[in-house]
């Protein structure tokens, strides 16, 4: 409520400023930072930049922060220094993105305009491969993320990637569903991929005839390191700590699965975190401050979501349930803002994705169509990727929890166990 009043005040201020200096370019400071406010946004025609424009427009759409206004293809391109804002005002556009090529095709100039006043809000340049293919797409996604930051104060999530499992191999795909690429060798069984915080490598389980190894693999080079001491028994569901120092995973000890933590840099020092002989403990997820670990445990009978301190002490129930009534709960993922736990729970004949809010202590069901599993948070804490059977086969879907909008992330083959990277800095 307080924020809304502030925004209103800022708006008045801006209007006053606009009136006072209507002939000069002024930088408007109004941020559309309320997650529920979606200003109308249009990406202006950019004839020489078709690929870049298409990717940026899609990214801005997928950010779910704007009411997108898609132009008819017949719309005349902007030529000359003056933009005729009349038609865009008629379309209820509040913001306009303009892309203009840099000399010699080395990149783009990006401008964010306030349509109502016709004033320039932000301007920047980006060096890009204008073809918008392969690794070059990430740089274009970063342009879109910066535009989202200009408009809302928080960067977008386009320059991210997902890992997922298809046919027992781990794949990588851009956040918009393009550029799917297989990362692990054929003829082996790879499972449960987890990103390192920097996104430069990932951990996963490789199942062999008798063991589950924890493997660390470089995204860029593909070089693999089997984590020492994981060759003798089942070691599954690895997860990096937010500072990248620790790897938590589940290992069979005394015939049941116990959570362990190991030093990733030194590749050593596996220590057991959960005690007790007759319960299964798996699927660890660190809180963003690295102090706590959420996990699945059967200590009370049915699998449910618990949490403990990162040293294994202070175990408590994390997501409440009614014994004998609530379905089994699996696959927790702690949100980047620290106050939400996404997971899936048995409902009727299948599973549904749930979000538990630690502040309100409420569980919210966010899916209902088909069976829906294995949610993973985007770095913005408002989008989740999950696996759904609603299209007839297992496919990745992305939901925006603010608007409820769901999109299918089309992958070449069926997909399971997605993991969403942080914002990627590298190529």
């Amino acid at each position, binding site marked *: 409520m307080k924020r809304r009043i502030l925004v209103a005040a800022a708006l008045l201020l801006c209007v006053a400023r606009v009136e006072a200096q209507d002939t000069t370019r002024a930088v408007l400071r109004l941020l559309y930072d309320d997650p529920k406010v979606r200003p109308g946004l249009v990406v202006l025609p950019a004839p020489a930049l078709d690929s870049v424009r298409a990717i940026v427009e899609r990214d801005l759409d997928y950010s779910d922060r704007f009411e997108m206004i898609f132009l008819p293809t017949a719309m005349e391109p902007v030529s000359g220094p003056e933009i005729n804002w009349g038609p865009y005002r008629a379309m209820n556009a509040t913001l306009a993105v303009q892309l203009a090529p840099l000399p010699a095709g080395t990149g783009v100039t990006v401008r964010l305009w306030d349509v109502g006043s016709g004033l320039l809000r932000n301007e920047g340049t980006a060096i890009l491969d204008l073809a918008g293919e392969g690794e070059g797409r990430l740089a274009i996604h970063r342009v879109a993320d910066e535009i989202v930051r200009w408009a809302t104060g928080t960067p977008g999530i386009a320059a991210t990637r997902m890992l997922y*499992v298809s046919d*027992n191999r781990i794949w990588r795909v851009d956040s918009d569903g393009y550029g799917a690429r297989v990362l692990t060798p054929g003829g082996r*069984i790879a*499972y*449960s991929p987890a990103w390192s915080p920097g996104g430069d490598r990932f951990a996963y389980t490789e*199942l062999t*005839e*008798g*063991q*589950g190894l924890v493997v660390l693999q470089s995204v860029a080079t593909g070089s693999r390191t089997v984590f020492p001491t994981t060759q003798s028994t*089942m070691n*599954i*569901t690895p997860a990096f700590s937010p500072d990248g120092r620790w790897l938590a995973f589940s290992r*069979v000890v005394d*015939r049941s*699965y116990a959570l362990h933590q190991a030093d990733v840099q030194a590749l050593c020092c596996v220590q057991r975190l959960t005690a007790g002989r007759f319960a*299964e403990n*798996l*699927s660890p997820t660190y809180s963003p401050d690295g102090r706590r670990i959420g996990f*699945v445990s059967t200590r009370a009978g049915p*699998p449910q979501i618990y949490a403990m301190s990162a040293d294994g002490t202070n175990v408590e129930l994390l997501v409440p349930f009614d014994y004998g009534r609530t379905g*089994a709960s*699996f*696959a927790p993922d702690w949100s980047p803002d620290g106050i939400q736990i996404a997971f*899936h729970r048995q409902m009727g004949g299948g*599973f549904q994705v749930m979000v538990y809010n630690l502040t309100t202590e409420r569980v919210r069901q966010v899916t209902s169509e088909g069976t829906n*599993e*294995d949610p993973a948070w985007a770095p913005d804490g408002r989008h989740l990727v999950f696996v759904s059977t609603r299209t007839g086969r297992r496919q990745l879907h992305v939901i925006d929890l603010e608007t409820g909008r769901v999109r299918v992330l089309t992958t070449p083959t069926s997909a*399971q*166990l997605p993991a969403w990277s942080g914002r990627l800095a590298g190529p």
Partner: protein
Amino acid sequence: MRLAFLSAALVAIGLTACSKQPQPAVTPTPEPPTRTEPAPPPPPPAPAGPSCDMVIASMVSELGTMINFDTDRFEIRSDAAGILDRKAEVLRSHPAVRLRITGHADERYTDEYNLVLGTRRAEAAKDYLVRRGVDASRMETASLGETQPLDRASTEEAWAKNRRDEFTVLSGRETLASHIAGCR
């Protein structure tokens, strides 16, 4: 059931053949001669060899018979108990044999928890065999969860097949005919 019969028959064959008493009435392969085929393979040199191998093969097949489980469960069903009883008998009489038991799940339950379910199913079979007198150190367990379905269809029938334990002879295979005179 049919397998048990077959293996019993083969054991009988092995007994007779390995005791080196020619009995032409019992032929291992009672197929009608095929005239269109070229010359049949030459008879093996040692009369005991192939029969011992056949006994071993039937024992390996007995030990390799899969067992199935109910949805989301790892209790040994009565049909599985019968299969495990026969394995226990073979294992007790062939102490050099070591087994790996690999548990599998169908695609419906949670992907990662299916690895746990597979481990529990493998351990359940191991526990059963231990109770039937097989030393625990002779068996190792593993799980492949839902990653290796026998039937990729999404039907009740396929899922029922896929919820299983598989059994692999790790060592001691060559001793599986040791109860037959003339075989090692």
